């Protein structure tokens, strides 16, 4: 019996270690990252403004904003005790943003995966690995991921 528990704990610990060895953005989900917003498409609303707007909401901390040619992705984390109402918060935020910035199309997500990918994209852009076109393509892939249903 003790061995079983030991094995389970060992697997969990091994899992954590694997994650820590990951070079890019390994801690994005554990701590508050507050990544700089990305503005791929330079005209129109500034991403800083959108980010401030989102961070003003009580239930939300840690926001990543990426503005592409067609869509603006807003990824954020919800305070844990508010996660019960996560879907409602998402809907409200989308409505609010679309009312405020009518010319933009928003993709809003509280999914950890979307947040993680947003941070990874930010890091790749900072490292100078991609031009605007490639970044926009990556953004589209992230949005496609978001639309996938279980």
């Amino acid at each position, binding site marked *: 019996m003790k061995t079983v528990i030991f094995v389970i704990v060992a697997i969990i610990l091994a899992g954590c270690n694997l994650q820590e060895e990951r070079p890019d953005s390994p801690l994005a*989900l*554990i701590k508050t990252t507050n990544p700089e917003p990305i503005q791929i498409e330079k005209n129109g609303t500034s991403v800083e403004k959108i980010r401030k707007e989102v961070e003003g909401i009580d239930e939300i901390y840690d926001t990543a904003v990426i503005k592409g040619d067609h869509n603006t992705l807003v990824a954020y984390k919800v305070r*844990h005790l508010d*996660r*019960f*109402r*996560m*879907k409602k918060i998402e809907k409200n935020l989308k409505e609010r943003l679309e009312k405020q910035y009518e010319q933009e199309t928003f993709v809003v997500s509280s999914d*950890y995966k979307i947040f993680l990918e947003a941070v990874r994209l930010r890091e790749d852009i900072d490292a100078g690995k991609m031009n605007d076109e490639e970044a926009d393509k990556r953004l589209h892939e992230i949005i496609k991921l978001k639309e996938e*249903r*279980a």
Partner: protein
Amino acid sequence: MLGMFFWAFVIGGLICVIGQLMMDVGKLTPGHTLSAMVVAGAVLAGFDLYEPLIDFAGAGATIPIMSFGNSLVAGAMQEAEKHGIVGVLTGMFEVTSAGISAAIVFGFIGAAVFKPKG
């Protein structure tokens, strides 16, 4: 994210305690208990209560067998939105197949690889 682990532990543990109480206090067999839990999961899904629990507790809500009832209802409702009432029947296994197909495949492999004990 660390909060996720904590709540997965607590909620998952509590659901198992409910199962234990059904077995010990309600004197149900494990088969009855699991069936009742799946039905309970389906009913909770009907009131849109199971999804928020998954948002909150992650694997603490998806790993217990109750989530089987929830995902059956979710699949049926998803399909019903598209095809109306017929979708209820056809969409049921849309989401759920993972648990059952994994159990079938690994069960078969297990039977081929392992020898019966005792």
